[in-house]
């Protein structure tokens, strides 16, 4: 017997994501899902961002990693409330994992929740975590062809960071090509050129977060 149907295979993840979003809405917390390749500078960006905004927008961090608690240790060192999720080989975070991590946080004291996804340019794009905004990050050393190679990371992003911009000259990176490739995928997201080495572009990034906070 054959039946035809329309059943969303990811409905359980999407339902959990909606629940997370409602929970965060109730607490007036803006959830920011940060996606990039491994090593683009997600943790470094948060090490700068969380203290810079601490007085006006208290933040916590949920950090996903395949193994180790190193990123969580780095973030705890700067005084950010941090919850580590070890995905044990999983290439992305799921909404259910984030739900568990939310249980460990006192949401009422927060205005911002950063979710550092597992470093991967393909898989995290397919899984809603219940975030309000998504950040796609590309760092200059990865090469100026990466936007075109990973369209599903950049097309749905709410903001795009071209990070480690301090290295642009040393690496002969064709910045115009990166901007042209982004313009084909996503003209809705603002694009900031950032560096945690020189602090370039960080004020633009902070201002963008301020405008998004409820």
């Amino acid at each position: 017997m054959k039946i035809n149907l329309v059943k969303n295979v990811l409905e359980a993840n999407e339902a959990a994501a909606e629940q997370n979003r409602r929970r965060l809405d109730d607490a007036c917390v803006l959830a920011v899902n940060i996606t990039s390749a491994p090593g683009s500078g997600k943790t470094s960006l948060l090490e700068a961002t969380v203290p810079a905004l601490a007085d006006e927008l208290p933040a916590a961090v949920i950090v996903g990693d395949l193994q180790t608690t190193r990123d969580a240790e780095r973030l705890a060192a700067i005084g950010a409330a941090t919850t580590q999720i070890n995905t044990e080989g999983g290439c992305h975070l799921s909404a259910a994992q984030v739900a568990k991590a939310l249980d460990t946080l006192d949401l009422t004291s927060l205005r911002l929740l950063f979710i550092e996804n597992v470093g991967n340019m393909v898989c995290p794009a397919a899984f809603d975590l219940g975030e309000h905004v998504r950040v796609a990050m590309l760092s200059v050393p990865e090469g100026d062809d990466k936007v075109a190679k990973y369209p599903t990371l950049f097309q749905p992003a709410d903001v795009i960071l071209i990070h480690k911009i301090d290295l642009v000259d040393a690496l002969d990176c064709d910045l115009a090509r990166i901007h042209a490739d982004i313009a084909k995928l996503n003209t809705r997201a603002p694009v900031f050129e950032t560096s945690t080495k020189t602090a370039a572009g960080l004020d633009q990034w902070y201002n963008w977060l301020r405008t998004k906070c409820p």
Partner: protein
Amino acid sequence: MHEMSIAIPLVEQLQALAAEHNAARVEALTVAAGVMRQVVPEALVVAFEVAAAETCAAGASLTVESVPLAARCRQCGRQFEPSIDSFVCDRCNQADVEIIDGNDIVLTSVTFQQADDEDQPG
């Protein structure tokens, strides 16, 4: 990659559907995968074999169909079919779209073997 995160809930759904239809086994199924989800069909088939082992869906034949993109321009409302590498609306030259198809992974057909099929001759 993320194909295992698709195969696991897929098998759970098949188990629920088999119970609902009083079926002993799943023989075949079709999944329509939107191109935005970047599913590699061969990888999904392998992940499905692993996830389905020792369930009523073990050995079922999985067909993966690809669903192309359809989008609506948020600036001018035009509907069009972008390619994965360009979402630019050629009326207003902006890449600011709402994806209306090609964004989901959907189970579209299941073939069951009924619980009593096994006993029937021929």
